[in-house]
């Protein structure tokens, strides 16, 4: 089970990777969303705010009404943000649940694919 601190650390790295990737920023330039991440084993929630492809905030707790809700175990969530896990595989196996439009589901996965193409 990953602790809140571990997930926040993973989120911080994820933010850096995303915001420094020019290819990703170009592709996501019209994508502004509020995301909630819920760890189903610990019950912890996290909020990520993306404005025009740039992650501008990561915080503990569920803030606002989200566009996307991702539910996974805390371990999977941590691995996913560090790029050590293929989220599409877990999603297709039903281990990661996403509540969002199909386009947004694909966009979230695309982030991982572009930052860590070999994942």
């Amino acid at each position: 089970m990953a602790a809140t601190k571990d997930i926040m650390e993973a989120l911080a790295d994820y933010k850096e990777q995303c915001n420094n990737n020019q290819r990703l920023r170009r592709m996501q330039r019209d994508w502004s969303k509020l995301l909630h991440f819920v760890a189903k084993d610990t019950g912890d929630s996290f909020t990520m705010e993306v404005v025009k492809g740039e992650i501008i905030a990561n915080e503990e707790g569920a803030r606002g009404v989200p566009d996307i809700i991702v539910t996974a175990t805390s371990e999977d969530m941590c691995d996913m943000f560090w790029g050590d896990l293929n989220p599409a595989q877990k999603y297709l196996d039903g281990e990661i649940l996403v509540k969002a439009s199909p386009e947004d589901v694909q966009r979230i996965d695309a982030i991982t694919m572009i930052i860590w193409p070999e994942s």
Partner: protein
Amino acid sequence: MPTLKKVLKLRTVVSASAGLAMATSVYLAGLQIALTVVGELAWISILVAGALCMLSAMCFSELVSLYPTAAGIKLYIQHAFNEKAAVAIGMFYVITGTAIVGAEGYLLSSVMIETVGVRVSMMADRFFWMSIFILIVAYINYRGVSITGWVQDLLTYIMFAFLLTISIYTLATRGVDIGPALHSPNFTLGKVLTAAGLGVFLFVGFEWVTPLAEETEDYRMVGKGMMLAVLLLTITYSLFVVAMYVGLTDQQLKSGTTIPHILFGRNLFGPTGGVIFIFMSLLASLTSFNSGVLNFSRFGYAMARANILPRVFSKLHPDYATPWVAILGLTIFALALCAFTLFSGQFMFIITMAAALECFIYVVVSICVIRLRKKYPDQERSYKVPFGKLIPVVNIVVFSGLMLGIFADTTRDSLGKIMFKNYWVAVVMAVFALVMTAYAFVVVPRLQQAARQRASQRKRRRPGQS
């Protein structure tokens, strides 16, 4: 359960489900049902098909409530059986289902040739129109342009309101004499059931809304939406097919036309009626094509990301974030199907195959319901099909029977001439199934092995993990 900023409403789930099933080919399939049994009593077969599809919708609803994800059918089969079965059946379902594009494109080209006439030659014109529609839809998807929920609702409900109004008007003004029809030698239980088997084609695609569960507030809404869509389709088709039959002349019925709805429109309101039906046909086909390309290209992308298809299919466009390789692959496949349909002229073969495929998938889904209840009896289900195993078992028996009935039948044209023996449909489907099974057992393990090797060469980034 937390709420999303934008959630789908029931009316959108219904319109998406019903809209997916409504295409140009349903008019011809409807006429084929009317000619198989007795036109005035075609509604009986459609009601039977609708009632059976409703039972399938109930099974789909239980599975959606268990796995409310876009991974849908792959996940049901994977949990009920195993991953190899899920890949083989899932890909068989998607790839064989794509074949409908060939029939739909062929019939749509008939509509366009009827509208603008032949310019070069029948074959060249047909291929031009088939290609142009596919390329337009592919381009829309490549650019990532999507139809918003309310536009889709408006278009779909206008289409259904129009068909219902026209049907009621025709039946009220022309009347239907069912007395002689009841004594027709064609009105037998066997014929009614054969026509019901073909009637399943009219509902093909209603279940493709299961991925929408991720956009709803309550997962039960998808199940409810599917059931309402099947009800709406059943009522509309039952009335429209009978109205179209009585609205066509004997000569038109026997002509083997591929555009019965346009002839029917012209009989009712002259050239204006024809134009309205041409517009409806284009609308129905384009929205169906669009949903097909959108769903199947995303399916291809997801399969490639999960190392089930080659990784090249997961490539995204740098500006539009669309899976352009998957869209391109699908477009080439669709054009090849159109060319095959054009040169063989066997669009009825594809319609028959789609009906059999739908029966097959309903059987698979019903088996999944039973197996998953046994494997995971305590897992939460917000909807459970009532009466225990009765409905899934009835579904398995009836749809297996209908599928075998389709295979045992012979498809004839409007003059009674044999077009093909339907066992050839079974042969083609069996070949597809074998190819997909070989792919699942031989190719997929290699792709997954290569993915594992790539992953093992990569150092884990997470601190403290080796």
